[in-house]
C-alpha cells in the first residue's frame, strides 16, 4: 500500500457511485487488490449505499396509507393535510438517510486510521531514490519538480510514499 489510504477516500466514494474517471479507477483497483482496509471501505460504502437505497424505497406503513386514502376522499382542506403528511414521510426518509450517512461517516475514519502507515519495501525505496536523483539540473521550479515526479511514478507504476 503505497499511497496513504486517506488519499483514496474521495476516490472510493466516486468509485462506488460509478462516476470515477478512467485513470484513477485503474489505480484504485490496483490498490484495492493489495489493501484489505480500502477493500473493506469499498464494501462498507456499497453496503451503506444499498441500505440508503432501501430506505428510500421503504413502503409507507398501512395505517398511514389508510389515513392518506381516507383523507384523500375528503375535502380540499383534507387534501392539504395529505400533502403535509406526504412531505412529513419524505422528510422522515431523508432524515433517516442522513442519520445513517452521519453514523457511517463517523465510523469510517476510525476504520481507516486503524491501518498502520506502511514503510516502503527496500525495492520500492530504491526505485524512488533512483528516480528522485534523475534529470535535475537546478533549472526546474517547484511545480516542474512535482510534475516530473508524478510522471515518473505513473510510468513506473509505483505510488509515492512521500513526496
Amino acid at each position, binding site marked *: 500500500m503505497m499511497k496513504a489510504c486517506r488519499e483514496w477516500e474521495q476516490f472510493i466514494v466516486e468509485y462506488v457511485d460509478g462516476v470515477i474517471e478512467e485513470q484513477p479507477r485503474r489505480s484504485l483497483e490496483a490498490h484495492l487488490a493489495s489493501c484489505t482496509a480500502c477493500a473493506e471501505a469499498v464494501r462498507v460504502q456499497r453496503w451503506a449505499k444499498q441500505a440508503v437505497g432501501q430506505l428510500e424505497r421503504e413502503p409507507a406503513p398501512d395505517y398511514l396509507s389508510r389515513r392518506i386514502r381516507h383523507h384523500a376522499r375528503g375535502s380540499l382542506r383534507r387534501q392539504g393535510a395529505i400533502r403535509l403528511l406526504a412531505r412529513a414521510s419524505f422528510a422522515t426518509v431523508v432524515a433517516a438517510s442522513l442519520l445513517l450517512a452521519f453514523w457511517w461517516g463517523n465510523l469510517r475514519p476510525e476504520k481507516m486510521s486503524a491501518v498502520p502507515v506502511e514503510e516502503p519495501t527496500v525495492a520500492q525505496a530504491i526505485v524512488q531514490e533512483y528516480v*528522485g536523483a534523475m534529470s*535535475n*539540473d537546478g533549472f526546474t*521550479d517547484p511545480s516542474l519538480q512535482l510534475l516530473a515526479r508524478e*510522471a515518473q511514478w505513473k510510468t513506473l507504476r*509505483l505510488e509515492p510514499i512521500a513526496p
Partner: protein
Amino acid sequence: MENTASGADSALRRVLVAIALWSLGWCASAQGQTPVQWLERVERAERTVSLEGVRVTQFFLPTPTPPVEEHIVRSGVRYRVEYLRPLVRRGEVLIDDGVRRFHFLPRLKKVDVLPSEQPLMLRRRQEMLKRLHWGEMLLEAKDAEPVAGRKTVLLVMKSAQGKPLRRWWIDREYGVILRMEELTPRGEVRMRTEYVRLTIPADVRPDRFAPRFPAQVQQQNILPPTRVFASVEEAQVLVPFPIRRPRELPSGYRLTEVRLRLIGQRPLVSLHYSNEVSSIALFQTRMPLRNHMPLMRSLSPLAVRVEKWQDGDVTLVLIGNAPPEVFQQIRKAVR
C-alpha cells in the same frame, strides 16, 4: 616595393573588416553575450524576476501524460502555482516561499507542508555553471522564434561528446526561461514546458504567497524521506557501516549526489554518478533484498541495467543506463 606595401595594407584592411563584421554579427545575434553569460543571466532571473502567466507542461517519454496547464505567479524565489488543467487537479495550489512548500489538495481537503527544495536547486545551478566554465559541458546560443509573444535566444546545452541534453528559450529582455525541453540521449523530447501567456515584469503583491487555505483544511507537515549530501564523507557519519564506493570512475563520470534514506530506522545509502548523458547509482543497505525482480520490473520503462550482490552483511545494487562496459567497470571498482 611600393606594390608589396600596398598589398600588405589591403590584406590588413580585409582582416580588420572581417573582424568588424564578425563582431557586429556576434553582437547582433546574442546581444554581445557568450552562451555561459546568458545562462548566468537566467540564473539571476530565477532569483529576482516577477512575472505572472500561464504555462503548459507535457511529458512525452517514456509514457505520454496529458498536458498540465498552470497559472503561475512568481516573485524571485517565491512561487504560487494554480492548476487549471486537467480537470481532475483544478483547484490545486502550490506555494513555495523559498523556505517551505505548501501543496493544497482540495479534493482531499488537506495541505502538505514540506521544506522548499530551492536551496538545493540553487546549489545545482551553481554546480552546472562551474562545469560549463570548466568546459565539461557545452553550451550554444542562437536566435530563435518568439515564445508567448516575446523575443528569445535559444540555449542548447550539450554533453562533452556533443549530445544535446536541454534546450532553453530565454527571454532576451529579462532572462526568464520561456520554454524548456529536456532531451533523451537519442535526442528525443522527453518533456516540454512553455509559457503561453505572460506578463513580465508583473506587479505581484506579497500576500499572493501567503499560505492561506480554507479553515476546514487539514495541514500535514511532511518531512522529506531523504537527505541529500554533496559527498560520501558527509553521509558516512550517519551510517553505521562503511559506505562502499568505486576506487576509480570511468572517464567523464562524477559523483552528483549522495542520498540517505531511513526505512524503519535502517539506512539505505545511494551514490549517484553521471556524465550528463548516462547515470549510474550504487545502493547499499544492511536490509535484506531477497528478490530484486520487482525492482527490475518497476524500472523496465527506463531501460536500465540492475545488478545485485552481497559484500559481507551489506547488499549492494547497481542501477544505471550507462553502456555495459561502463557498468561493469564501476561494478569491479567498488570496494
